[in-house]
C-alpha cells in the first residue's frame, strides 16, 4: 500500500478516500483483519490520532467493523462493497465527461474515443 497526501486538505479525509479505494478494489480483502491503528499510522506516516479518526469514519460508512477485543476487519458485505465501487466508478466517469465537455467534445465523440481507447 502506498499513500500520497497533499497538505491542502484534511489528512484524515484523504486517508478515508485512499483506504476506501484499497478496500473496494480488493487490495485489502473482504473480511481481512486490519493492522492496528499504530501500525497503520507508521506505515502511512501519519499521526495515530489522525488514523484513528479515519477508521472511525470508515466504520461509520460500514466498510470496516470492530470485533470486540479482536481488532478491526473489512466488511464481508459484498453488496455494500459493490455499491461503493459503483459510486466510485460513476464519480470518476462524471469527472472525466465534465473535463471532456469543457474541452468542447460532445457525448457521441466522447463515447467514440472511449471505445477506441478501451481494449
Amino acid at each position, binding site marked *: 500500500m502506498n499513500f500520497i497526501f497533499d497538505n*491542502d486538505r484534511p489528512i*484524515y479525509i484523504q486517508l478515508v478516500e485512499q483506504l476506501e479505494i484499497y478496500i473496494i478494489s480488493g487490495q485489502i480483502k473482504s473480511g481481512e483483519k486490519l493492522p492496528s491503528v499504530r501500525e497503520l499510522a507508521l506505515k502511512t506516516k501519519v499521526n495515530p490520532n489522525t488514523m484513528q479518526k479515519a477508521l472511525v469514519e470508515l466504520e461509520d460508512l460500514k466498510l470496516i467493523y470492530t470485533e470486540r477485543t479482536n481488532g478491526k476487519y473489512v466488511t464481508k458485505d459484498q453488496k455494500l462493497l459493490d455499491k461503493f465501487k459503483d459510486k466510485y466508478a460513476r464519480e470518476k466517469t462524471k469527472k472525466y465527461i465534465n473535463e471532456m465537455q469543457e474541452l468542447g467534445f460532445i457525448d457521441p465523440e466522447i463515447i467514440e474515443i472511449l471505445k477506441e481507447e478501451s481494449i
Partner: protein
Amino acid sequence: MELLECKHIYKGYDKKPVLKDINLKIPRGKIIGLLGKNGMGKTTLIKLINDLLIPTSGEILVNGKEVGIESKKIISYLPERTYLDKSMTIKQTLDYFTDFYDNFDIEKAKKLIKDLDLEIDTKISKMSKGMQEKLQLILVMSRNVELYILDEPLGGVDPATRDYILDTILNNFNEDASIIISTHLISDIERILDEVIFIDKGKIILSSDADKLREKENSSIDEIFRRMFKC
C-alpha cells in the same frame, strides 16, 4: 488535569517584551506544532516551560504543579543547539544519560543507535553533523516521560535526515505523552501534527486542530501561515 498549562505568561529581557500574555493548555496524547517565524518567542516560551528561564509574571503548571525539579523529570527537551560533550563516545554518553535520568531507557536507545549502523565506541566528534543530530534525538526520545519538547528538530537537516527524524518522532509517540515541536519549516512537519499554535511577536494568535483548520481554509497549514505573516 492538563499536562501543561501556561497562564498569563509575560517575559521580557531588559524591559523589551518577548512574550505577552501567553495562555495555553496542552492535553495528553497529542503532537502539537508551535509555529512562528524566527525571533517571535518560540524558544523563550520553551525555555520557560523547561524552567531554564523565569517568567516576568504568570504561571506555568505541569500536572497542576508549578515547574521545577518535578517537572524536569517528566519533560524531555531537545534544544536547538546540541549540548553533547563531543569528546565523549556514544557509550559514555549513554552511561551519562543513565546516571542523570531515572527514566532513560538505555536498551531502547541502543537499539535505535544500532539501527543507524553506529558503533557504540565512536567518539561524537568523529560523527557527521547529521548523525549527531540523530543521536541527540534518540537520547531525548529514549526517556520515558510525559512531555517531549523539540525545538527546531529539522533546522538545517537534509531530506533523508528529515524523514528519519519524523519517523523517529512518530515511532516513539504514545497516547500517554504529548510532543511539542517548534519549527518555522511547517510544510515538512504539518502532516504529523494534531494541533497547531501560531505565535507572532510574542503572542499566540491562533490555536486550532490541524485538520479543522485545513478544512475551514481549504489550504495547507503552511499556506495559511504564509498568508498570515506575509512580509
